[in-house]
């Protein structure tokens, strides 16, 4: 196998590597991912386990109007949720999807049998009159004389511990929710929430893509060069090169060819040989060290 053939094969491999690298680069999955779920109830629940799972992530809730999020002890939240239709976020089956299901109260509603009737009567009477009085300036509210609903204040708020409020969108850092407490998010007007999302940062093992691209570039370049050399006739150029090399090798072999007065001619004439001056006086005996006979004897 010639060098050219090897280079061509390398070029083909390079093209494949480069293509794979570029496609991989274009489809590189993002590290920051948002898992979402759509909602159809006005109350959303994040249990302590799910909040612990979210860790440092941000939980977002979208709706229309005034949104409020509150925390409570699990038993208190469960008792409150027993009287409200709610959706619970249960997990993360895929990176972009939040799993949800209808919230099922863990305690029997009989724990507080009397309040549901008495609590609903009082607000329904009073606000209906106020609503009709306040609604007259507003065209949108006038057709319906339904009582105003405030999920947060229609019943006692004594059991809620932490509270966040927002309009249209509410964002809560999971780590801001006290450990072990349930997060309940509601649209205060009772309208259905739109969606909820949790942002996660995931690990993506994409460190091989950039080296792959560079190796592809190098090998492709080698292949391209080999391909070019396959189609271009370089023999004239090669002949010129060989002739130039041969001329350089001939140069210096024939000293007689030196031009008179040139440096080569002067060198040939020995002009630059050093002039050594020889001293005719012999060296004195004292100049040279004299061996000590006693030393020799002593050594002997």
């Amino acid at each position, binding site marked *: 196998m010639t060098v050219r053939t090897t280079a061509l094969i390398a070029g083909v491999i390079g093209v*494949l590597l480069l*293509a*794979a690298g570029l*496609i*991989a680069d274009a*489809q*590189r*999955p993002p590290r920051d991912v948002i898992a979402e779920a759509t909602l159809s109830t006005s109350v959303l629940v994040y*249990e*302590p*386990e*799910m909040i*612990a*799972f979210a860790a440092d992530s941000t939980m977002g809730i979208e709706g229309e109007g005034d949104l409020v999020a509150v925390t409570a*002890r*699990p*038993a*208190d939240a469960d*008792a*409150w949720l027993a*009287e409200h239709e709610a959706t619970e976020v249960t*997990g*993360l*089956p*895929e*990176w972009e999807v939040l799993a949800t299901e209808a919230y099922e109260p863990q305690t029997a509603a009989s*724990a*507080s049998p*009397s*309040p*549901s009737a*008495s*609590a609903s009567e009082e607000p329904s009477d009073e606000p209906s009159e106020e609503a009709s009085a306040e609604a007259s300036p507003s065209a949108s509210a006038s057709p319906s004389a339904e009582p105003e609903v405030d999920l947060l204040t229609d*019943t*006692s708020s*004594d*059991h*809620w*511990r932490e509270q966040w409020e927002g309009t249209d969108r509410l964002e809560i850092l999971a780590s801001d929710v*006290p*450990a*072990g*407490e349930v997060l309940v998010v509601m649209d205060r007007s009772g309208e259905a929430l739109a969606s909820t999302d949790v942002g996660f940062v*995931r*690990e*993506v*093992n*994409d460190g091989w893509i950039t080296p792959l691209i560079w190796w592809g570039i190098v090998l492709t370049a080698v292949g391209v060069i080999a391909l070019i050399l396959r189609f271009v006739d370089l023999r004239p150029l090669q002949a010129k090169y060989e002739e130039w090399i041969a001329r350089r090798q001939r140069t210096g072999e024939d000293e007689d060819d030196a031009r008179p007065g040139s440096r080569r001619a002067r060198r040939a004439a020995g002009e630059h040989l050093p002039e050594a001056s020889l001293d005719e006086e012999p060296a004195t005996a004292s100049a040279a060290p004299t061996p000590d006979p006693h030393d020799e004897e002593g050594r002997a």
Partner: protein
Amino acid sequence: MNRVITAGAVATASGLILTGCVADVPAPVMSAPPMAETAALLDPQSTAIIDATMDELAAADADKDADLLTDRVGGDAVTIREAQYTRADGDDETPVALPSGQQAVYSSAAETWPRTLATVSEQASEDETPVMYLWVQDSIDEDYQLRGWAHMIPGATVPAMPGTTTGAEQLTLEDASLDPTAQSVLDDYLSLLREGTDSELNDAFGADSYREQLFTARDTLTDAAEEQDGEYVDTIQSVTDDTYVMGTADGGALVFAPLEITSSFTVEDATVSISEADEPLLDGELDDKVTHHYLDMIVLSIPGPDAEGQPTVVAADHNLIKVSES
């Protein structure tokens, strides 16, 4: 065609490789992390409840109008305060002062209802002892309501109570964790109140000025009635449904017990009279009999099994709510 196949293969391979590059979804958290504070109410919550209650009480006090006691004050507290307003209207005196500042707050650990919140107020003045308040929440939908209060007995000490980390255990009158049960101790105390100083139960309870005053008044009125060939009879009943028990730190309990007391004074061939201060509460026209109706609140401290001391009333108020002719 081969190029298309090659390109497709490369793209597929890249996609598969990249799919493998993304880490798996983390495993779910299967158990909830423990709560730092498990009491039903933390300090900000109890402070909000107390402030709302005191604001409502202050507004009602300003107008001496019990109808303003709607949301945060309920039950016997409204009845008692209404009677105090009525008495105050008569001679323009102010109703009994209820300090708004609290020096101790005891929250329940209950996860069911009803549940309670108790506090010990600051001392309103040198002449008055701190007041013990009791709030009750009947259900998750209902606000905590002030249901009663009682001034502390001079020299009495409230036992140590659990903090907000755990909260105080919400006990029942029949709870077997107390031996004897709170119901038994309360029944004994009621028997002592009925029997007087000669009762064998007198030594079973620590001294308290509440029963001393009750016994003194009984003796005085009995003597007065006998002088007029009349009779003095009082009855004492507890209100079990409105009695609440909170566990103390040493395994004992604080029992918040309302008591209904009636004092009937009858004379022969004469007309009874009452003090001018009580006249605004008179219902009817007096002849030879008058009955005073009281709605008292006592706070009975039951020591834990390893604690020294006897059951003792640490706070009590004697509240006149009505005077009737029969």
